[in-house]
């Protein structure tokens, strides 16, 4: 999610258009020499695949002469999309990820905000240690994080399960009801520190004088944190929310790893797992349509969330 997450930054950021006088710049050939090393692979490995996915999603496989005839692809309009929308597995994967997002994202961002605020108060010692500790999981790829946690979930190996058994709880982290939240925990562990650091960077750029007035009025650290700091860094909070929504919809590696040890994760657990499964069955057109639908839902949710919050808070 990093990349997508980090990428979303630019959505919020207004581009600074600086008009300059024409002329005086290098020759067109030189400009092209600077641009081509990026734009050529960008064209080939970004724009062409996007176009290809859109085109594929409008095609269908037909057969000549019944079940045993040769197959060929033809233009099918929105047939693939209609199939996606009729697919109950698609909707249950969306529902699952929706539930995941509605719970995991606010919990993670709240914890991130609390850590960022505490790191920004004089109340706390060992700040560098806590900051680094929280950020450290960001260096761990999703697959390895999920492997690590899967050992902590496994009834045979986990010291956590042993501990909880010892005090009379019988946890089943991989059970049908719990496995979604076990996945959510891996995401939370991975991304809390990253989100915290974005909020913390924003807090650090607030000039100290802003707090002086509040302090003179006798406001406590608590009041300053929630009434002064949080509203100021609201844009960063919106930003991290958008990252997280995007990341949630792309979820793949973590549930795929947990699937190796839990039968309660199906091959269509998340929308991306569904797309992969459908593609593995050689139904590329349907997989392309699923990918496009996921991308569209991502755009709509991200922009919707930004519009909603900016209206409400007047950002």
């Amino acid at each position, binding site marked *: 999610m*990093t*990349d997508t997450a980090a*990428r*979303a*930054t*630019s959505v919020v950021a207004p*581009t*600074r258009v600086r008009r300059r*006088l024409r002329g005086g*710049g*290098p020759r067109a050939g*030189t*400009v092209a020499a*600077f*641009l081509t*090393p*990026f*734009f050529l*692979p960008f064209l*080939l490995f*970004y724009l062409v*695949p996007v176009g290809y*996915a859109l085109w*594929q999603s409008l095609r269908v496989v037909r057969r000549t002469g019944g079940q045993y005839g040769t197959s060929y692809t033809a233009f099918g309009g929105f047939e693939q999309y209609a199939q996606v929308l009729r697919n109950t597995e698609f909707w249950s994967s969306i529902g699952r990820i929706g539930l995941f997002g509605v719970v995991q994202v606010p919990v993670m961002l709240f914890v991130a905000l*609390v*850590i960022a605020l505490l790191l920004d108060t004089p*109340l*706390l*010692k*060992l700040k560098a240690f*806590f900051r680094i500790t929280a950020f*450290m999981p*960001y*260096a761990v*790829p*999703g*697959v*390895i*994080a999920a*492997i*690590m946690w899967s*050992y*902590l979930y496994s009834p045979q190996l986990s*010291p956590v399960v042993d501990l909880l058994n010892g005090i009379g709880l019988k946890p089943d982290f991989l059970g049908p009801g719990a496995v979604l939240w076990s996945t959510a925990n891996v995401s939370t*562990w991975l991304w809390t520190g990253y989100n915290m650091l*974005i909020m913390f*960077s*924003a807090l*650090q750029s607030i000039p100290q004088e802003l707090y002086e007035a509040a302090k003179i009025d006798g406001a406590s*650290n608590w009041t300053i944190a929630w009434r002064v700091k949080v509203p100021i860094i609201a844009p960063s909070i919106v*930003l991290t929310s958008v990252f997280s929504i995007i990341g949630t919809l*792309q979820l*793949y*590696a973590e549930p*795929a*790893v947990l699937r*190796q040890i839990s039968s309660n994760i199906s091959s269509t657990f998340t929308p991306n797992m569904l797309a*992969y499964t459908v*593609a593995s069955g050689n139904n590329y057109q349907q997989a392309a349509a699923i*990918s496009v639908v996921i991308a569209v839902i991502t755009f709509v949710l991200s922009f919707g969330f930004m519009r909603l919050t900016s209206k409400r808070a007047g950002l």
Partner: protein
Amino acid sequence: MSNPSVIRESRVSRTAVMALMLLLAVYFLLPVYFLVVAATKPQGDLAATNGLVFSHFNLFENLRVLFTRSDGVFGRWALNTVVYAVLGAAVGTLISALCGYALAKFPFRGREVLFSVVLGGVLVPTTALALPLFLLFSATGLVNTYFAVFLPSIVSPFGVYLARVFANASVPQELIESARLDGAGEFRTFFSVAFRLMTPALVTIFLFQFVAIWNNFFLPMVMLQKESLFPITLGLYEWNGQTARAPLLQQSVITGSLVSIVPVIIVFVLLQRFWRTGLAAGSLK
């Protein structure tokens, strides 16, 4: 303030804050600590002993098994990961820097249009690209080669965005003009003047792209069948899937996970300030 109740209150809240942060620190460190402990144990002790307590120290034997298993395929995966993530991020940073610099400093027609296209690219989730890329690459015979993972990984629209922001902020136009007056060509100017001024920014771009590639599991998974081409993540994933049939693999999955994350964690902690520059630039500009 000398009001005693205020002082007591602040002592109580200091303690509460410290307790909360320690609890969170335990949460963040627990899986890594577990991994360190588990990596030092013989396979037999994994299930038989408490996972949080060291038992027989067997780390070196575990490492030997890890690096010799299947003709040393793990070392190969590590090397592949360096090629994909380190080399890929380095090439990616260079082309992003050239492009971002040109978009920031050269006046030319269509500049804003090109930049908008790049920003659009920022929004495309990489997982959405993997499947169509697979189809395109299988048509051209690129599937199951280094290029299948390497080439798409060097493209980072976000890197171009950051490079443009940083070039605007850190390379004064006057310096470029004076280098031009001295007769330096545009590339010479870029590499001798701009590159140096942009170095901290380029480290940030490199780090972001490194993480993106290091984390991108979907692309290699879709593209590669040949084990010898896998990055570490895909290799460990495959091994992890076989532990039900070959339980002894478990220890290698654990040791392999530890070996692959420790160097990255160290580098990240050492380069912390670059993250903060990047995150601040990304979110505030």
